[in-house]
Protein backbone atom coordinates (compact mmCIF):
# COMPACT_ATOMS: atom_id res chain seq x y z
CA UNK A 1 0.00 0.00 0.00
CA UNK A 2 2.84 2.30 0.89
CA UNK A 3 4.28 1.85 -2.57
CA UNK A 4 1.12 3.09 -4.19
CA UNK A 5 1.01 6.10 -1.90
CA UNK A 6 4.61 6.85 -2.79
CA UNK A 7 3.85 6.59 -6.50
CA UNK A 8 0.93 8.95 -6.07
CA UNK A 9 2.86 11.52 -4.00
CA UNK A 10 5.90 11.19 -6.21
CA UNK A 11 4.01 11.82 -9.43
CA UNK A 12 1.95 14.68 -8.02
CA UNK A 13 4.75 16.65 -6.37
CA UNK A 14 8.27 15.39 -6.99
CA UNK A 15 8.14 14.24 -10.58
CA UNK A 16 5.29 16.50 -11.54
CA UNK A 17 4.57 15.85 -15.15
CA UNK A 18 4.45 19.53 -16.10
CA UNK A 19 6.84 21.13 -13.66
CA UNK A 20 9.57 18.47 -13.58
CA UNK A 21 9.15 16.46 -16.78
CA UNK A 22 7.99 19.40 -18.89
CA UNK A 23 5.29 17.36 -20.58
CA UNK A 24 1.85 18.64 -21.52
CA UNK A 25 2.88 22.28 -21.73
CA UNK A 26 0.49 22.97 -24.57
CA UNK A 27 -2.77 22.63 -22.59
CA UNK A 28 -0.93 24.00 -19.55
CA UNK A 29 -0.52 27.32 -21.33
CA UNK A 30 -3.66 27.05 -23.41
CA UNK A 31 -6.42 26.33 -20.91
CA UNK A 32 -5.12 28.05 -17.80
CA UNK A 33 -6.85 31.35 -18.42
CA UNK A 34 -9.80 30.68 -16.15
CA UNK A 35 -10.10 28.68 -12.97
CA UNK A 36 -13.29 26.82 -13.93
CA UNK A 37 -11.91 25.88 -17.32
CA UNK A 38 -8.70 24.57 -15.87
CA UNK A 39 -10.64 22.48 -13.38
CA UNK A 40 -12.69 21.01 -16.23
CA UNK A 41 -9.60 20.31 -18.26
CA UNK A 42 -7.94 18.74 -15.24
CA UNK A 43 -10.90 16.48 -14.61
CA UNK A 44 -11.11 15.43 -18.26
CA UNK A 45 -7.39 14.71 -18.39
CA UNK A 46 -7.52 12.75 -15.15
CA UNK A 47 -10.31 10.61 -16.51
CA UNK A 48 -8.55 9.98 -19.80
CA UNK A 49 -5.15 9.38 -18.29
CA UNK A 50 -6.27 6.93 -15.60
CA UNK A 51 -8.24 4.88 -18.11
CA UNK A 52 -5.48 5.07 -20.69
CA UNK A 53 -2.81 3.87 -18.27
CA UNK A 54 -4.90 0.87 -17.27
CA UNK A 55 -5.92 -0.04 -20.80
CA UNK A 56 -2.50 0.45 -22.28
CA UNK A 57 -1.02 -1.78 -19.59
CA UNK A 58 -3.51 -4.51 -20.49
CA UNK A 59 -2.84 -4.14 -24.20
CA UNK A 60 0.90 -4.06 -23.74
CA UNK A 61 0.97 -7.11 -21.50
CA UNK A 62 -1.65 -9.37 -23.05
CA UNK A 63 -1.87 -8.32 -26.72
CA UNK A 64 1.51 -7.00 -27.70
CA UNK A 65 3.98 -8.85 -25.51
CA UNK A 66 7.55 -8.62 -26.74
CA UNK A 67 7.17 -9.67 -30.36
CA UNK A 68 4.66 -6.90 -31.21
CA UNK A 69 6.41 -4.22 -29.14
CA UNK A 70 6.83 -2.07 -32.23
CA UNK A 71 3.05 -1.53 -32.20
CA UNK A 72 3.20 0.04 -28.73
CA UNK A 73 3.05 3.73 -29.62
CA UNK A 74 0.54 3.14 -32.38
CA UNK A 75 -1.88 1.09 -30.27
CA UNK A 76 -1.56 3.45 -27.30
CA UNK A 77 -2.51 6.39 -29.47
CA UNK A 78 -5.50 4.51 -30.82
CA UNK A 79 -6.67 3.70 -27.30
CA UNK A 80 -6.17 7.26 -26.12
CA UNK A 81 -7.99 8.63 -29.12
CA UNK A 82 -10.92 6.34 -28.39
CA UNK A 83 -11.13 7.42 -24.76
CA UNK A 84 -10.83 11.08 -25.70
CA UNK A 85 -13.61 10.66 -28.23
CA UNK A 86 -15.81 9.17 -25.56
CA UNK A 87 -14.93 11.95 -23.08
CA UNK A 88 -15.66 14.56 -25.70
CA UNK A 89 -19.15 13.24 -26.30
CA UNK A 90 -19.77 12.97 -22.59
CA UNK A 91 -18.69 16.56 -21.87
CA UNK A 92 -20.61 17.88 -24.83
CA UNK A 93 -23.73 16.36 -23.38
CA UNK A 94 -23.18 17.35 -19.77
CA UNK A 95 -21.52 20.76 -20.07
CA UNK A 96 -21.74 22.51 -23.44
CA UNK A 97 -20.03 25.61 -22.10
CA UNK A 98 -17.07 23.63 -20.85
CA UNK A 99 -17.07 21.86 -24.19
CA UNK A 100 -16.93 25.17 -26.02
CA UNK A 101 -14.36 26.63 -23.66
CA UNK A 102 -12.03 23.64 -23.86
CA UNK A 103 -12.47 23.93 -27.59
CA UNK A 104 -9.59 22.54 -29.58
CA UNK A 105 -7.78 21.42 -26.42
CA UNK A 106 -10.29 18.69 -25.72
CA UNK A 107 -9.56 16.61 -28.84
CA UNK A 108 -5.96 17.66 -28.41
CA UNK A 109 -5.79 15.60 -25.21
CA UNK A 110 -5.15 12.85 -27.73
CA UNK A 111 -1.90 14.41 -28.73
CA UNK A 112 -1.14 15.67 -25.23
CA UNK A 113 2.37 14.35 -24.77
CA UNK A 114 1.65 13.82 -21.09
CA UNK A 115 -1.15 11.42 -21.92
CA UNK A 116 1.01 9.39 -24.25
CA UNK A 117 4.08 9.84 -22.09
CA UNK A 118 2.66 8.29 -18.96
CA UNK A 119 1.67 4.90 -20.49
CA UNK A 120 5.09 4.75 -22.14
CA UNK A 121 6.81 5.60 -18.85
CA UNK A 122 4.69 2.90 -17.24
CA UNK A 123 6.09 0.33 -19.64
CA UNK A 124 9.59 1.62 -19.10
CA UNK A 125 9.31 1.42 -15.33
CA UNK A 126 7.75 -2.05 -15.60
CA UNK A 127 4.80 -1.15 -13.38
CA UNK A 128 2.15 -3.77 -12.73
CA UNK A 129 -1.54 -3.04 -13.42
CA UNK A 130 -2.38 -1.29 -10.15
CA UNK A 131 0.86 0.63 -10.16
CA UNK A 132 0.13 1.75 -13.69
CA UNK A 133 -3.28 3.00 -12.62
CA UNK A 134 -1.80 4.93 -9.69
CA UNK A 135 0.98 6.30 -11.83
CA UNK A 136 -1.52 7.51 -14.40
CA UNK A 137 -3.85 9.00 -11.86
CA UNK A 138 -1.01 10.62 -9.94
CA UNK A 139 0.38 12.16 -13.10
CA UNK A 140 -3.03 13.49 -14.01
CA UNK A 141 -3.66 14.85 -10.52
CA UNK A 142 -0.29 16.57 -10.63
CA UNK A 143 -1.24 18.04 -13.98
CA UNK A 144 -4.58 19.22 -12.56
CA UNK A 145 -2.89 20.70 -9.51
CA UNK A 146 -0.44 22.84 -11.41
CA UNK A 147 -3.05 23.76 -13.99
CA UNK A 148 -5.42 25.05 -11.30
CA UNK A 149 -2.64 26.83 -9.41
CA UNK A 150 -1.42 28.40 -12.59
CA UNK A 151 -4.93 29.46 -13.61
CA UNK A 152 -5.43 31.12 -10.23
CA UNK A 153 -2.17 33.02 -10.67
CA UNK A 154 -3.06 34.00 -14.20
CA UNK A 155 -6.45 35.31 -13.13
CA UNK A 156 -4.68 37.67 -10.76
CA UNK A 157 -2.07 38.43 -13.38
CA UNK A 158 -4.88 39.53 -15.66
CA UNK A 159 -5.49 42.53 -13.40
CA UNK A 160 -1.83 43.29 -12.84
CA UNK A 161 -0.01 46.21 -14.33
CA UNK A 162 2.38 44.19 -16.48
CA UNK A 163 4.86 46.04 -18.73
CA UNK A 164 3.60 45.99 -22.28
CA UNK A 165 6.16 43.62 -23.88
CA UNK A 166 5.54 41.07 -21.14
CA UNK A 167 1.75 40.96 -21.41
CA UNK A 168 0.02 37.69 -22.22
CA UNK A 169 1.99 34.55 -22.87
CA UNK A 170 5.40 35.97 -22.02
CA UNK A 171 4.57 36.82 -18.43
CA UNK A 172 2.74 33.49 -18.21
CA UNK A 173 5.88 31.64 -19.27
CA UNK A 174 7.98 33.58 -16.77
CA UNK A 175 5.48 32.65 -14.09
CA UNK A 176 5.52 29.02 -15.17
CA UNK A 177 9.30 29.02 -14.88
CA UNK A 178 9.14 30.41 -11.36
CA UNK A 179 6.54 27.80 -10.49
CA UNK A 180 8.79 25.08 -11.83
CA UNK A 181 11.59 26.35 -9.61
CA UNK A 182 9.24 26.24 -6.66
CA UNK A 183 8.29 22.65 -7.45
CA UNK A 184 11.95 21.69 -7.30
CA UNK A 185 11.58 22.24 -3.59
CA UNK A 186 9.66 18.96 -3.43
CA UNK A 187 12.69 17.05 -4.66
CA UNK A 188 13.75 15.83 -1.26
CA UNK A 189 10.22 14.90 -0.18
CA UNK A 190 10.53 11.18 -0.89
CA UNK A 191 13.80 9.36 -0.45
Amino acid at each position, binding site marked *: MQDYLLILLGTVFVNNIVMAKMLGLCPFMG*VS*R*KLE*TSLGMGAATTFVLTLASGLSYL*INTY*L*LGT*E*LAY*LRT*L*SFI*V*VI*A*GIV*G*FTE*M*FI*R*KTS*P*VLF*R*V*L*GIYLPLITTNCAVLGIPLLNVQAQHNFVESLFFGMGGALGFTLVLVLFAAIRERLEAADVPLPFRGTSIALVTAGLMSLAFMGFAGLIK
Partner: protein
Amino acid sequence: MLAAILVMSGIALVLGGILGWAAIRFRVEEDPLVEKIDAILPQTQCGQCGYPGCKPYAEAIAKGEADINRCPPGGEDGVKRLAELLGVEPKPLDEGLTHKPKSVAVIDENLCIGCTLCIQACPVDAIVGAAKQMHTVIPELCTGCELCVAPCPVDCIHMEVIKEDVSSWKWRYPIISLKRAA
Protein backbone atom coordinates in the same frame (compact mmCIF):
# COMPACT_ATOMS: atom_id res chain seq x y z
CA MET B 1 2.31 -9.69 -39.57
CA LEU B 2 -1.09 -11.32 -39.29
CA ALA B 3 -0.95 -10.99 -35.52
CA ALA B 4 -0.26 -7.27 -35.78
CA ILE B 5 -3.20 -6.75 -38.13
CA LEU B 6 -5.46 -8.79 -35.92
CA VAL B 7 -4.45 -6.91 -32.78
CA MET B 8 -4.92 -3.49 -34.31
CA SER B 9 -8.24 -4.29 -35.93
CA GLY B 10 -9.42 -5.89 -32.69
CA ILE B 11 -8.64 -2.72 -30.75
CA ALA B 12 -10.26 -0.61 -33.44
CA LEU B 13 -13.41 -2.73 -33.44
CA VAL B 14 -13.86 -2.60 -29.67
CA LEU B 15 -13.26 1.13 -29.49
CA GLY B 16 -15.51 1.73 -32.48
CA GLY B 17 -18.27 -0.16 -30.74
CA ILE B 18 -17.91 1.89 -27.55
CA LEU B 19 -17.83 5.17 -29.45
CA GLY B 20 -20.88 4.20 -31.48
CA TRP B 21 -22.80 3.43 -28.33
CA ALA B 22 -21.65 6.71 -26.74
CA ALA B 23 -22.74 8.69 -29.79
CA ILE B 24 -26.29 7.41 -29.32
CA ARG B 25 -26.27 7.60 -25.54
CA PHE B 26 -24.90 11.16 -25.34
CA ARG B 27 -26.68 12.67 -28.31
CA VAL B 28 -27.02 16.46 -28.08
CA GLU B 29 -30.36 17.78 -29.27
CA GLU B 30 -29.99 21.54 -29.22
CA ASP B 31 -27.08 23.74 -28.48
CA PRO B 32 -27.87 25.57 -25.19
CA LEU B 33 -24.87 27.74 -25.91
CA VAL B 34 -27.10 29.89 -28.16
CA GLU B 35 -29.17 30.95 -25.16
CA LYS B 36 -26.06 31.87 -23.21
CA ILE B 37 -24.71 33.99 -26.06
CA ASP B 38 -28.12 35.56 -26.64
CA ALA B 39 -28.25 36.54 -22.97
CA ILE B 40 -25.10 38.62 -23.39
CA LEU B 41 -26.24 40.39 -26.55
CA PRO B 42 -27.98 43.73 -25.88
CA GLN B 43 -31.21 42.80 -27.72
CA THR B 44 -31.38 46.01 -29.70
CA GLN B 45 -32.26 43.85 -32.74
CA CYS B 46 -30.55 46.49 -34.86
CA GLY B 47 -29.06 44.13 -37.42
CA GLN B 48 -25.72 45.93 -37.57
CA CYS B 49 -24.01 42.57 -37.21
CA GLY B 50 -25.41 41.53 -40.57
CA TYR B 51 -27.93 39.12 -39.10
CA PRO B 52 -31.66 39.90 -38.83
CA GLY B 53 -31.61 40.13 -35.03
CA CYS B 54 -29.77 39.17 -31.90
CA LYS B 55 -30.87 35.53 -31.81
CA PRO B 56 -29.71 34.74 -35.37
CA TYR B 57 -26.38 36.37 -34.58
CA ALA B 58 -26.10 34.26 -31.43
CA GLU B 59 -26.81 31.15 -33.46
CA ALA B 60 -24.17 32.17 -35.98
CA ILE B 61 -21.61 32.68 -33.21
CA ALA B 62 -22.46 29.33 -31.68
CA LYS B 63 -21.97 27.62 -35.03
CA GLY B 64 -18.69 29.45 -35.48
CA GLU B 65 -19.92 31.27 -38.58
CA ALA B 66 -19.74 34.77 -37.14
CA ASP B 67 -17.04 36.48 -35.14
CA ILE B 68 -17.75 37.89 -31.69
CA ASN B 69 -16.83 41.48 -32.55
CA ARG B 70 -19.77 42.43 -34.72
CA CYS B 71 -22.12 43.93 -32.13
CA PRO B 72 -21.64 47.71 -31.78
CA PRO B 73 -24.39 48.31 -29.19
CA GLY B 74 -22.75 45.75 -26.91
CA GLY B 75 -19.47 47.60 -27.28
CA GLU B 76 -16.06 46.50 -26.08
CA ASP B 77 -17.61 45.28 -22.91
CA GLY B 78 -19.97 42.94 -24.73
CA VAL B 79 -17.14 41.56 -26.85
CA LYS B 80 -15.13 40.99 -23.70
CA ARG B 81 -17.94 39.04 -22.08
CA LEU B 82 -18.52 36.95 -25.21
CA ALA B 83 -14.79 36.23 -25.31
CA GLU B 84 -14.92 35.16 -21.68
CA LEU B 85 -17.85 32.82 -22.31
CA LEU B 86 -16.29 31.26 -25.36
CA GLY B 87 -12.74 31.18 -24.05
CA VAL B 88 -11.20 33.23 -26.82
CA GLU B 89 -9.18 36.42 -26.89
CA PRO B 90 -11.27 39.60 -26.94
CA LYS B 91 -10.70 41.81 -29.95
CA PRO B 92 -11.75 45.30 -31.04
CA LEU B 93 -15.01 45.83 -32.91
CA ASP B 94 -14.98 44.87 -36.55
CA GLU B 95 -14.05 47.57 -39.03
CA GLY B 96 -16.85 49.94 -39.93
CA LEU B 97 -18.72 49.27 -36.70
CA THR B 98 -18.57 51.85 -33.95
CA HIS B 99 -20.07 51.92 -30.50
CA LYS B 100 -22.34 54.92 -30.05
CA PRO B 101 -23.65 56.26 -26.76
CA LYS B 102 -27.04 54.82 -25.91
CA SER B 103 -29.80 56.88 -27.45
CA VAL B 104 -33.51 56.75 -28.15
CA ALA B 105 -35.54 57.63 -31.21
CA VAL B 106 -37.72 60.74 -30.98
CA ILE B 107 -40.54 61.49 -33.40
CA ASP B 108 -41.21 65.11 -34.19
CA GLU B 109 -44.93 64.94 -33.69
CA ASN B 110 -45.65 68.08 -35.72
CA LEU B 111 -44.14 66.57 -38.83
CA CYS B 112 -45.45 63.02 -38.48
CA ILE B 113 -47.97 62.15 -41.18
CA GLY B 114 -49.06 58.87 -39.66
CA CYS B 115 -47.77 56.56 -42.38
CA THR B 116 -47.08 53.66 -39.93
CA LEU B 117 -43.81 52.81 -41.72
CA CYS B 118 -41.78 53.29 -38.56
CA ILE B 119 -44.15 51.06 -36.61
CA GLN B 120 -43.53 48.29 -39.08
CA ALA B 121 -39.79 48.85 -38.84
CA CYS B 122 -39.57 48.82 -35.05
CA PRO B 123 -38.35 45.38 -33.99
CA VAL B 124 -39.40 45.73 -30.36
CA ASP B 125 -42.85 47.33 -30.63
CA ALA B 126 -41.70 50.57 -29.05
CA ILE B 127 -43.70 52.89 -31.36
CA VAL B 128 -47.40 53.49 -30.89
CA GLY B 129 -49.81 55.11 -33.32
CA ALA B 130 -52.33 54.28 -36.00
CA ALA B 131 -52.72 55.07 -39.71
CA LYS B 132 -53.09 58.83 -40.28
CA GLN B 133 -52.64 59.40 -36.56
CA MET B 134 -49.62 60.85 -34.88
CA HIS B 135 -47.01 58.29 -33.77
CA THR B 136 -44.77 58.42 -30.78
CA VAL B 137 -41.87 56.44 -29.35
CA ILE B 138 -42.12 54.97 -25.88
CA PRO B 139 -38.66 55.97 -24.68
CA GLU B 140 -38.42 53.27 -21.98
CA LEU B 141 -38.96 50.55 -24.57
CA CYS B 142 -36.76 51.98 -27.33
CA THR B 143 -33.48 50.13 -27.78
CA GLY B 144 -31.96 52.79 -30.00
CA CYS B 145 -31.54 50.52 -33.03
CA GLU B 146 -32.19 53.35 -35.52
CA LEU B 147 -34.20 51.05 -37.81
CA CYS B 148 -37.12 53.48 -37.81
CA VAL B 149 -35.07 56.48 -38.94
CA ALA B 150 -34.54 55.46 -42.57
CA PRO B 151 -38.12 54.40 -43.49
CA CYS B 152 -39.69 57.73 -42.40
CA PRO B 153 -40.75 59.55 -45.60
CA VAL B 154 -40.73 62.98 -43.95
CA ASP B 155 -37.54 62.52 -41.89
CA CYS B 156 -39.30 63.35 -38.68
CA ILE B 157 -37.40 60.80 -36.55
CA HIS B 158 -34.07 61.59 -34.99
CA MET B 159 -31.92 59.92 -32.38
CA GLU B 160 -31.32 61.60 -29.05
CA VAL B 161 -28.52 60.55 -26.74
CA ILE B 162 -29.88 59.64 -23.32
CA LYS B 163 -28.77 62.21 -20.77
CA GLU B 164 -27.52 61.12 -17.41
CA ASP B 165 -29.76 61.93 -14.46
CA VAL B 166 -29.53 61.35 -10.74
CA SER B 167 -30.99 57.85 -10.93
CA SER B 168 -28.85 56.62 -13.82
CA TRP B 169 -25.67 58.36 -12.70
CA LYS B 170 -22.71 56.12 -12.08
CA TRP B 171 -19.68 56.64 -9.87
CA ARG B 172 -16.71 57.38 -12.06
CA TYR B 173 -13.57 55.33 -12.18
CA PRO B 174 -11.31 56.98 -9.60
CA ILE B 175 -8.41 58.58 -11.35
CA ILE B 176 -5.15 57.90 -9.62
CA SER B 177 -2.07 59.71 -10.70
CA LEU B 178 0.92 57.62 -9.74
CA LYS B 179 3.25 60.50 -9.09
CA ARG B 180 6.09 60.44 -6.65
CA ALA B 181 4.94 62.00 -3.41
CA ALA B 182 6.77 65.27 -3.10
